[in-house]
């Protein structure tokens, strides 16, 4: 039996060697990235994604959360920063994953060839609500992308609707502003997601609920039932306050 066994071992060695070489070649080929990359900074926190667009000058800088727009056909370099525990940034349809590790900045380069909505989810166990830490990468044609950038850079537009204005009052007088920022108002909290254009995002609470006025109200009414253990406390509001503040947030497109 020596010859059959030796032949089988030799064939295995050749196959394993071939796989190893193929793996090396693929690793090299996947290395996109260069100086013309579009830079986006991602910070992972329990259990949401802070997204910063630095732009090429300080006036261009803005922050958003959980929804990332990128231009089609251009290399995008995500700069990944861990803040609390390890998270992992993974958009399966666009690229492999990369961890966000406190103390160790990482980078991930992607390039979308087609416009579309690409779902991502945290892929490193990060505690209680790891299961509900999704995000969306939306690839836009360059012109649509430029439009989106301009809209995001803008401050929250003042409204003339009475209910929306009442909602803004609720937002600013209750504890919301302690954690959340709405640029153009006196709300400058940074512990929680930036809400300047939250009404225009497709989902809230890191992919948990589609953004509607109703879901915003549900979320604010009791975050702990929908996403137990998350860091947003329940802020007691009367039903009228809840109605108006959800109208306000839904209007922030």
């Amino acid at each position, binding site marked *: 039996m020596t010859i059959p*066994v030796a032949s089988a071992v030799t064939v295995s060695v050749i196959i*394993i060697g071939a796989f*190893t070489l193929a*793996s090396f070649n693929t690793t090299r080929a996947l290395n996109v990235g260069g100086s013309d990359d579009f830079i986006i900074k991602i910070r992972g926190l329990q259990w949401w994604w802070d997204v910063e667009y630095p732009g090429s000058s300080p006036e261009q800088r803005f922050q958003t959360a959980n929804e990332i727009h990128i231009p089609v056909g251009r290399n995008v370099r995500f700069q990944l920063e*861990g803040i609390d525990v390890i998270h992992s940034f993974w958009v*399966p349809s666009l690229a492999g*994953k*990369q961890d966000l590790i406190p103390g160790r900045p990482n980078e991930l380069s992607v390039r979308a060839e087609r416009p579309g909505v690409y779902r991502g989810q945290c892929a490193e166990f990060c505690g209680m609500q790891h*299961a509900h830490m999704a995000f969306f990468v939306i690839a836009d044609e360059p012109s649509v992308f430029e439009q989106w950038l301009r809209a995001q850079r803008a401050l929250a537009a003042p409204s003339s609707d009475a209910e929306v204005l009442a909602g803004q009052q609720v937002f600013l007088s209750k504890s919301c502003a302690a954690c959340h920022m709405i640029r153009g108002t006196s709300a400058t909290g940074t512990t929680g997601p930036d809400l300047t254009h939250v009404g225009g995002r497709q989902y809230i609470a890191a992919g948990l609920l589609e953004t509607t006025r109703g879901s915003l109200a549900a979320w604010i009414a009791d975050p702990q039932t929908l996403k*137990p253990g998350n860091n947003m406390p329940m802020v007691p509001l009367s039903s009228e306050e809840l109605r108006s503040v959800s109208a306000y947030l839904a209007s922030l497109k």
Partner: protein
Amino acid sequence: MMDDAKSKDQRDSDFDRPALEAGLASIWKTPAGLWGALATVDHKIIGQRYIVTAFAFLALGGVLAVLIRIQLAQPEARLLGPDRYNQIFTMHGTNMMFLFAVPVMEAMAVYLIPLMVGTRNIAFPRLNAFSYWMFLAGGALLWIAFALDMGPDVGWFAYVPLSGPQYAAGKRADMWAQMITFTEVSALAVSVEIVVTIFKQRAPGMSLDRIPLFVWSMLVTSFVVILAMPAIMIASTSLILDRLIGTHFFNPAEGGDVLLWQHLFWFFGHPEVYIIFLPAVGMVSTLVATFARRPVFGYLALVMALIATAVLAFGLWVHHMFVTGLPRLGESFFTASSMAIAIPAGVQIFCWLATLWDGKPVFKTPLLFVIGFMFTFVIGGLSGVMVASVPFDTQVHDTYFVVAHFHYVLIGGAVFPLLGAVYYWFPKITGRMMSERLGRWSFWLIFVGFNLTFFPMHILGLQGMPRRIYTYQPDMPWHGLNLFVSGCALILTAGFLVFFVDAIRSARRGEPAGDNPWDAPTLEWATSSPPPSYNFPFIPVVEGSNPLWEQRETLAVGGGMRVDRRELIITTVGAAEAEAREASPRNSIWPFWTAIATSVMLIWSIFSPWAVVWGSIPVAIALIGWFWPEGTPEDDS
């Protein structure tokens, strides 16, 4: 005190057979009752305890798995909330790896190795007793913590910072870290005993090239334990220090490093799976030989493959860290080593296939499990070669693809051989056969149930389902397969139930086995089933690698040993030439007290660092009691 009164001591040649057996029994036996149970140093009693306890942990871990599968059968299910689920999946992994998989392999070795090498007891028998109590205490600590809602909830791998002082409140993570100390002390102790037993207590004539392959696999495994476990001891101790007294090993703000944990953990963690797998390889070699009715093909190649696997196992650990942002060039080295370790595994499979091809296979239950192992482990190995590739792994890391992979290699590679080994050695341990009919039922239920449950998980991973999530949303395309998987898990569960029922029933009412029901070649089958307390009335002398096939009528033995003290033969490492008639310790209650004192110290230290100071005093007292000579004949020299 030199042996000045040779005429005073009693030698085996002074007695006829019944009187010899009675004399040996009176010296070697474990008395009935509580003191006997607590003070025994008989490797067979301790080994059986170990095996039963490890299987009890398997059953508990299986219950956790069923809960996980029920929760995941539906999207946004409400059976388990996130906190309970996170404790359950942490407990499932921790329990299976630390309280079942490693201990059960050690346990089989504790029972079988002394019999297979032809000696009367394991080396350091009191340490053996101590190590069982430490194992039991560690398991009790973990499960009692879980029952009190203080179970660890940070994953079996407990990555920092999630498990560190800032993000893991309370004592949950400390329970995990200290349980590690218990089980590592236990495993290290057993490994030392196994190495010394195999090196120094083999039957005269059992040179290195005549050692049974299971013994080789346990020798190699024990060295892997000795070299790998210090890494997790350092890791878990550093974690406890960070949490308890404010050190900064893993705190990047003060010069520590988050990845340091991963390096230390996986430097242990990768060899750990080979600590589980290599004993199973030894079991497969044993079963293949007996049920192919011929010595295994390629003895030297199989030994070399064991050693190569063990060495390579230390060079793979970074493949668990491919997405942490380490330099790609360095990561590629670990791709190469992770692929390379498939080669010795391939050598082993081809040698076993050659043995079966060239032999006259007897398709009893143990052989069925071996064939199931080959099918399942090879699939697991193939998915392993896939995840060894960095680009592929960046997609499937931390998804259900990996869950599928490691269950294929662990259940396929370790549990199948273990179940076959239980069917095989059960008659030797209990004196009764298990049921061939129930054995076939359990094999097919487990084999079919396992593949139906775990194969779809490869697909779920490729569909983007991450690991360690307590639920998933209805708009994900994962519901159908998860429901299917959960249903098939019941088939797998049924198979295990049949196995447990068979084992429990057969222990009382199985068919009497006789000394050698399988007509197997190794020394443990030369003595009665179950063996007497002294294993062999005369120490065997070995003249080949398959003693019972080479000497079918009579067994060559040596005489001239004392009957009034516990004696065994020490031989040289290479050629196994007899050097001494060494004494073997009597039953002693000190290992039990030492385990109690050590457990108190370790559990106390979860809450206060001073426990290490004050708690070590009772430990020292117990150890002094342990080692103080008693003036028995065993102290003669």
